[in-house]
């Protein structure tokens, strides 16, 4: 038996935000960050004004949200008792909102309410809180608007780590995809967030948990992202915003999240989660290279699946092996075209820092769920070698 979990509604396209004005909420709790509050929150407030809903705004979400900030938001939720939580921002904001909700529903568990989430426990979030979750992503990357996992930073030990927690009740009731919100995205974020989504498509498609339903979403998402990321990136160099392209990216990021959330991620994200926490590298900056390493490491095990991805974007090759090799070459070329780093050194990790952290980094990577669902088995020694190569940006030869 397997599940494929989806939000109840996906509202997308131009003017999608207007959907909010059609809803009748009593009290809306908006989770956001200071930048989004300044840039785009007025667009939401205009729509909510029509509903006469009371609004509480929690705008303290940092780029890498911690369990502690999520707990603070949960306390405010308990005080205000809204009937709708709107997560308005990027992955950090949406993951934070997903973390706050179970903490609010089970205040007696504190941080354990999220840290100890049992994937199949009946949380009864909606019944206990009388509230729904609406996600409105403002970047095109994380797919967090439709996933049932939340990635939060645990800084309770010496080596900070990103830990993922999940339960299918965390899937939003409604996700709203309005491309207008991506208008101000800097090109570095178009590239970085885009590569995050692309990595979801790759990981979800290569995962040992992949299934017919996730395959359908992920292959098309991969194609849309591969074609449109460089276009949007280069347009942004000149300040041009083509909303048709932005809409494709926005939709594809959600499709990618939808797909991988119902299959799994693999080694690339296991590495990305870990180095992001340990070396303080933004996820959008490290995930592209980590994905490239996952393709290299897995090419001997799932060349047929990697070849599917290659064919989807028109890469040619006489065999599945040749297609895999060609996609890996093209992936590196894309990273360079988008000015993204391909090594830990390029990400600013010094040899001293690397040597000091690598043992715990490998330990955390091994215990990330992405390692378990990686198609080619990976052990401690494998990660030692992968990280050695990754530090310098060398291509894997094993």
């Amino acid at each position, binding site marked *: *038996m*397997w599940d494929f979990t989806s939000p109840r509604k996906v509202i997308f396209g131009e003017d999608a935000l207007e959907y909010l004005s059609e809803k009748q909420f009593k009290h809306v709790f908006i989770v956001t960050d200071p930048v989004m509050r300044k840039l785009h929150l007025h667009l939401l407030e205009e729509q909510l004004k029509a509903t006469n809903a009371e609004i509480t705004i929690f705008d303290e979400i940092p780029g890498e949200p911690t369990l502690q900030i999520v707990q603070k938001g949960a306390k405010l939720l308990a005080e205000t008792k809204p009937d709708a939580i709107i997560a308005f921002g990027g992955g950090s904001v949406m993951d934070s909102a997903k973390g706050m909700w179970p903490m609010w529903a089970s205040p007696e*568990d504190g941080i*354990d*309410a999220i*840290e*100890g*989430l*049992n*994937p*199949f426990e009946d949380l009864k979030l909606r019944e206990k809180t009388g509230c729904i979750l609406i996600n409105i992503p403002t970047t095109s990357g994380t797919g967090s608007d439709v996933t049932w996992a939340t990635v939060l930073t645990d800084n309770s030990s010496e080596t900070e780590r990103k*830990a993922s*927690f999940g339960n299918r009740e965390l899937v939003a009731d409604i996700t709203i995809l309005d491309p207008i919100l991506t208008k101000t995205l800097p090109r570095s974020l178009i590239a970085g967030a885009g590569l995050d989504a692309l990595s979801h498509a790759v990981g979800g498609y290569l995962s*040992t*948990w992949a299934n017919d339903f996730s395959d359908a979403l992920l292959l098309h998402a991969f194609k849309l992202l591969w074609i449109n990321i460089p276009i949007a990136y280069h347009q942004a160099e000149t300040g041009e915003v083509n909303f048709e392209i932005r809409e494709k990216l926005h939709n594809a990021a959600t499709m990618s999240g939808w797909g991988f959330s119902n299959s799994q991620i693999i080694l690339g994200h296991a590495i990305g989660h870990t180095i992001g926490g340990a070396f303080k590298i933004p996820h959008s900056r490290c995930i592209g290279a980590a994905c490239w390493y996952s393709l290299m490491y897995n090419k001997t095990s799932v060349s047929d699946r990697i070849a599917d991805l290659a064919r989807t974007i028109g890469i040619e090759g006489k065999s599945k092996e040749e297609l895999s090799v060609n996609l890996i070459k093209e992936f590196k070329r894309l990273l360079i075209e988008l000015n993204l780093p391909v090594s830990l050194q390029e990400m600013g990790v010094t040899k001293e820092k690397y040597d000091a952290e690598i043992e715990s980094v490998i330990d955390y990577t*091994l*215990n*990330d*769920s992405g*390692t*378990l*669902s990686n198609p080619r088995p990976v*052990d*401690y020694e494998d990660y030692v070698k992968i990280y050695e190569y990754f530090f310098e940006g060398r291509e894997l030869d094993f």
Partner: protein
Amino acid sequence: MVVYGSEEWVEALMVKINESEAYEKAAKNWEGDFIFKTIPDGTGTLTEEASIYCDLWHGKCREAYLITPEKPSPENVEYIYAGKYGNWLKLFDGKIGPLKGIMQRKFDVKCSARSMAKLMRALKAAQELVKCTTMIDDVEYP
């Protein structure tokens, strides 16, 4: 020849866990005890539930035995990991993993929220523990 679920099998498992360098490395910080429960489901000839107590501590197995009326488990065991016999066989064959087994409802884990958090940080150790079961020589599965 040792029969799966027998006292001899449990003793052999304890030996394999304590011999495994991979498990020792993956579970070096682990502290926690388990009851592994096998529920008969018509697969093979297993007719009675078999429960094993296993105390795992920093990469080693400190104690393991077959739970019987004469030798019950200690009170307050941290984890109970239970599944049908047919699903245990799939786990030993590598057809399902310890986490995927939970996700597919083939196995049920009973523990506190805090313990679940701890388990989710020890996925590699769980995988290595399963590998230890496959290293026991000459097992007869009833």
